[in-house]
């Protein structure tokens, strides 16, 4: 067996020896060639310089996503693709090699500037990153390379264009390419490597509608013959609603929409269609480049700003959720003694019942009726222990908020059942004064249970020093027009600070308290559209009133 490794192992062994940059290098070679073909397709004849020259930008995007140590391999991988694409077009070999150098230079400068400020692969998920990309990759790199490029053209003596004319044409072409191609690749790479969020069908439908609409508008505006010599400026704004829509959907959608519009515009002009046709190639190219650059930069920034804001909000929400869970677990920790007691009760009943049955059976004086009573009690006790664990499981879980229709009275009963062990060991009597047939509420069960449990535990703690006959916890539920109220009342020491201070985070009177319970409870109730208020009672003790909007009765 060992002498003949299985083919699968062999493949695996071979794959392990392959350098990690190889797949990326192959992708760059293929991509570079295709991008060059696209560039030729978008070239205004007989102008030797494309309106949009994508290979450089593709190379820059590859470097921005790759690790710095594999950069040289990726640049090298572009050489055969470059030679293959350029030599077909009848350009002198010296010029082809010169362009290879200036293309690599542009990609390297653009990627190096970004890498100096942003660690790891570039992600267009913050305004800072977007600004660094715009200044470094889309502005500085094309600026430097277009001078080099124009100088090379002059040195080799290919074509008869003026030097400054060459610099300007080359610069705008490269800027537009960087602006169009790099965000497209970088954002889709981020989408592909991100943990898959559940994408709702509605989202796909929305994207389909957006891109169909945008394509229609672009074809109508940019790819049909224009009768007038100069189109009305209004037509240039026709794609704007779709671009804004795309920006709202995220940087990847925005970059895709901008690329679609750019290609549609240039394709139209190349075929003598649309508002940019009918001028000299130089003018057409410049007008288009200015128009497309002016549209792309703000839209890209807008989409990144929106994405950043929603990401920050999502992170804040996640943090709040974790804090809520943490305080819930801390509270359950406080309750653990009581919960152990609560589990001990049914366990005691099960054990003692079973042992009694064993003795009756051993003494041969087992009355079948008694035995069946014993078994019924064992079943009941077991169910009760199961209920305790079931109630705990939900509270320990850390899940997304899940809103459902709930009966407030049932919620109160469940919470008091959970706290019952703790209340019993503290010698606290509970008086439930629940108004029957309360309207229901729409709420997250776990979060509301957390609020009520927190109030009950606080009340119990406040009555620690009370004489036993005063250890009474009252939980009241009532309804008024459109609202339900749950009042948790104790006869404890009350509170000596203002109610505002009471709800502040990290205010606590308990030696091991986190001081988060009331502050989190308040934010939960507020998030449910309700209010949480605290009052001290004249006879001593405190009352905490939870008010929630009620669902209309059916």
């Amino acid at each position, binding site marked *: 067996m060992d002498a003949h490794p299985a083919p699968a192992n062999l493949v695996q062994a071979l794959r392990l020896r392959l350098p990690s940059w190889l797949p990326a290098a192959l992708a760059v070679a293929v991509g570079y060639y295709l991008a060059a073909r696209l560039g030729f397709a978008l070239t205004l004849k007989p102008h030797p310089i494309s309106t949009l020259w994508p290979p450089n930008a593709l190379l820059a995007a590859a470097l921005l996503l790759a690790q710095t140590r594999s950069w040289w391999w990726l640049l090298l991988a572009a050489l055969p693709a470059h030679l293959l694409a350029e030599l077909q077009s009848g350009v002198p070999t010296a010029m082809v090699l010169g362009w290879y150098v200036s293309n690599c230079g542009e990609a390297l400068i653009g990627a190096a500037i970004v890498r100096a400020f942003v660690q790891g692969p570039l992600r267009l998920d913050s305004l800072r990153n977007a600004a660094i990309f715009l200044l470094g990759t889309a502005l500085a790199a094309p600026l430097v390379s277009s001078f080099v490029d124009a100088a090379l053209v002059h040195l080799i003596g290919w074509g008869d264009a003026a030097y400054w004319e060459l610099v300007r044409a080359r610069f705008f072409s490269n800027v537009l390419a960087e602006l169009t191609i790099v965000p497209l690749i970088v954002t889709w790479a981020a989408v592909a490597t991100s943990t898959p969020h559940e994408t709702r069908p509605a989202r796909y439908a929305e994207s389909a509608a957006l891109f169909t609409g945008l394509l229609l508008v672009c074809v109508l505006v940019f790819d049909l013959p224009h009768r007038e010599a100069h189109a009305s400026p209004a037509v240039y704004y026709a794609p704007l609603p779709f671009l804004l829509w795309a920006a709202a959907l995220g940087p990847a959608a925005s970059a895709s929409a901008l690329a679609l519009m750019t290609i549609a515009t240039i394709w139209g002009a190349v075929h003598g269609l649309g508002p940019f046709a009918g001028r000299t190639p130089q003018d057409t190219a410049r007008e288009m480049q200015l128009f497309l650059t002016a549209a792309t930069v703000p839209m890209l920034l807008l989409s990144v700003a929106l994405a950043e804001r929603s990401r920050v909000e999502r992170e804040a929400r996640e943090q709040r959720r974790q804090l809520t869970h943490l305080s819930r677990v801390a509270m359950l920790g406080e309750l653990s003694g009581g919960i152990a007691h609560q589990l001990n009760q049914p366990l005691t*009943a*099960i054990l003692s019942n079973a042992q009694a049955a064993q003795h009756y059976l051993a003494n041969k004086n087992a009355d079948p009726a008694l035995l069946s009573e014993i078994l019924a009690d064992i079943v009941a006790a077991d169910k009760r222990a199961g209920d305790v664990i079931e109630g705990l499981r939900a509270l320990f879980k850390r899940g997304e908020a899940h809103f459902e229709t709930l009966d407030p009275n049932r919620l109160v009963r469940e919470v008091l059942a959970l706290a019952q062990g703790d209340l019993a060991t503290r010698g606290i009597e509970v008086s439930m004064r629940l108004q029957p047939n309360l309207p229901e509420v729409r709420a997250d069960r776990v979060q509301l249970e957390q609020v009520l449990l927190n109030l009950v535990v606080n009340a119990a703690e406040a009555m620690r020093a009370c004489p036993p*006959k005063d250890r009474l916890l009252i939980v009241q539920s009532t309804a008024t027009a459109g609202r339900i109220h749950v009042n948790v009342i104790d006869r404890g020491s009350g509170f000596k600070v203002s109610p505002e201070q009471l709800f502040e985070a990290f205010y606590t009177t308990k030696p091991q308290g986190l001081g988060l319970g009331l502050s989190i409870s308040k934010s939960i109730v507020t998030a449910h559209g309700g209010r949480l208020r605290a009052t001290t009672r004249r006879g001593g003790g405190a009352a905490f009133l939870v008010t929630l909007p009620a669902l209309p009765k059916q």
Partner: protein
Amino acid sequence: MGMQQGCVTVVDDDALVLRSLGRLLESRGFAVQTFSSPQEFLERGERAVRGCILMDLSMPGLNGLELQQALAEAKDSRPVVFISGRGSVPSSVEAMKAGAMDFLTKPLDEEKLIGAVQAALAKDRVAQEKRAQHASITGRLATLTLRERQVLGRVVEGKLNKQIAAELGTAEKTIKVHRARMMRKMQVDSLAELVRAWTLTQPQQI
């Protein structure tokens, strides 16, 4: 086993636990009474019943310490065995300070429970015997005349008839007659027996 052992009174506010403990003790041959709350026990429980009390330490309304106090006020001297769901040191210390016989944690070990209950019942039996003796001696003391009681007091102090006669200002022969009648009424045959019976009536000895 059975009634002559005394009755085990179980108090627990958890109906399932209460029933299961009652059944377990009954299956082991004990007579059992059950109460579902300390209040019910204080209001309806008979104080004259002999035996022991097995109760949960933490029940709403009254805790172990308070129930102990209430029982003392009601002149109920039955030994108490506490059971608790949480075997924390502070609560057990508190219970033992309150005069508990024993402190068991749930879920209960059957043999420990039976052992504790038997020990409590035995303690109650001894106390009951002592009380019965005390009652009978007190009854006998009540039949003595003033003079006989004066003689008894001096006899147990170890005084001779001659000394007692001198102290009480009568003849030694008269003292002898009082003394013989007193010994008969107290149903004792020797000075040693008399001293023991008399000591039992002294409050600090109970």
